[in-house]
């Protein structure tokens, strides 16, 4: 197995606070890797750096064998790295179907074409059916429930055929049934060849779903391994429970 994403020595300081401190880790192709750690350990900052939303002070990121020199969210998205947000960012003024179409990463030549072409429609509806959102396709996305929005965001970032999907707390604030649904979709897509990097606070889910688990504390990696190892790792326990 080879690494799809390699993060090396990234550093990010906000004023006097070091959010990410010389952090390095790898995400293997085909894995569902978890990124966990106590609050303020730098998970979201690392996410934002990897996806180009923040610029690291130093360090390198390599995605799919290529070093990324000037990361922007758009270029990374087109290269096959998509993400979801903790707060489920969708386009509330667009319909559910349009949310998927806009996320399918079309090039400028298509700009003059139809808003939703027949081809777009078929492709988007297939994905919506998979997520059981097809009956809602005509609804404004802003009218969906919070859990449905999370599903919609997940479904729409898959439209660009990503190699790696970063999920920022995919199950935070949704009901238990929806957590199971989300878990099923992650597994399905993983079987279809998509690699996942997941930030999650629901430890039961992490232990069920993810392997390996990477633990961050104070902006640096303190442990990596299978779920069972992590659960009994003294350093991890110290980070979560210690002073």
């Amino acid at each position: 197995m080879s690494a799809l994403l390699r993060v090396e020595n990234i550093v990010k300081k906000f004023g006097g606070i070091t959010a990410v401190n010389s952090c390095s880790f790898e995400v293997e192709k085909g894995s569902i890797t978890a990124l966990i750690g106590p609050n303020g350990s730098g998970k979201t900052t690392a996410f934002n750096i990897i996806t180009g939303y923040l610029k690291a002070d130093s360090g390198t990121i390599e995605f799919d064998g290529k070093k990324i020199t000037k990361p922007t969210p758009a270029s990374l998205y087109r290269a096959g790295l998509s993400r979801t947000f903790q707060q489920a960012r969708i386009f509330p003024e667009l319909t559910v179907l349009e949310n998927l179409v806009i996320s399918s990463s079309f090039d400028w030549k298509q700009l003059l074409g139809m808003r939703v072409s027949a081809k777009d429609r078929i492709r988007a509806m297939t994905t919506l059916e998979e997520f059981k959102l097809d009956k809602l396709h005509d609804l404004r996305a802003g009218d969906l429930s919070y859990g449905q929005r999370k599903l919609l965001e997940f479904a729409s970032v898959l439209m660009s055929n990503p190699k790696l999907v970063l999920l920022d707390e995919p199950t935070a604030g949704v009901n238990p049934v929806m957590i199971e649904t989300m878990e099923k979709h992650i597994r399905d897509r993983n079987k279809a060849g998509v690699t996942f990097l997941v930030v999650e606070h629901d430890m039961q889910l992490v232990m069920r779903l993810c392997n390996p688990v990477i633990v961050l504390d104070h902006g640096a990696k303190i442990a990596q391994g299978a779920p069972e190892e992590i659960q009994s790792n003294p350093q991890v326990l110290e980070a979560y429970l210690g002073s």
Partner: protein
Amino acid sequence: MSRNGLLRGGLFFASLISFPFLTTSQWLTNMFIFTLMYVALSSSWNLVGGYAGYPSLGHAAFFGFGAYFTAIVFQNSVGNGWPPFIFLPVVGIVAALLSIPIGYVAMKTRADVFAIVTITVLFMAQSLAFNLHAVTGGAQGKGVAVPPFDSSTYGRPFYFAMLALVALAMGSSMYFRQSKIGLSLSAIRSDEDKAHGVGVQVTKVKVVAFALSVGLTAMVGGIWAYYEGFVYPQFAVDPLITIGMVLMTFLGGRATLWGPVLGAFILVPAQQYLSYQLGANQFYLLAYAGIFLVTMLILPRGILPTISDKLRLKKKQKEALA
């Protein structure tokens, strides 16, 4: 386009085309010319202010640019009849090209900051118009030679020229609604950072919308200059023109096809009536402010979106009952 939409559009343009043949009343034709002028202006403004959600307050600068461009090119030609109309596409294209760097820089800011940046463009244009004597004639203005149109139907060519621009602006609006450009603009209005993150060509689309919008605005300015026969800086680059465009679009409904049309058809006649009633002063501006405040309070999204929301709700309730 739906059948109803075709019918509505057909009826709208058919009645406007036949209008000048039904009356020769000069004040009525004059009022319709100004109404159509504002329909074209607010529909153009809507392309960027409505669909993209970038509230430009600088459009009057480009209106003035179009007016001066036409006036300067045709200032001396005696007996010029149709050439100024034929020249309009050049005015539009030059204004659009000129606006690309301006739009590119201004659109790095958003919302209220964007409004302030664009209003600076307007005041810069105004002080250029006042001070570049050699080009604009300064405060003395610039005259356009009077065309040899028959006095009984003098307004007609201007009326139809304005109508053609209305068709062009509404056509662009229509196109925006049905193309991927429009979808991209809606996404930008909804959440620009996210749109950028999912690979939408944010900058390109925004700048294209801005250029198209101000290109149309400049063409309207060209007709206006020809119709008025004289271009003064305080009227050609007038904040009131900007405010009119914005207010009409807000009143009728942003990011809709018919909203700006409705807004113009309400406000232009109202403004003419008020300025007639209140004498030739600018008291009607108080009415403007009043309308704006009431619109924002009762119909924050404008007339058409509020109505369609109500209808949608009713339909939903009906479906729930059935």
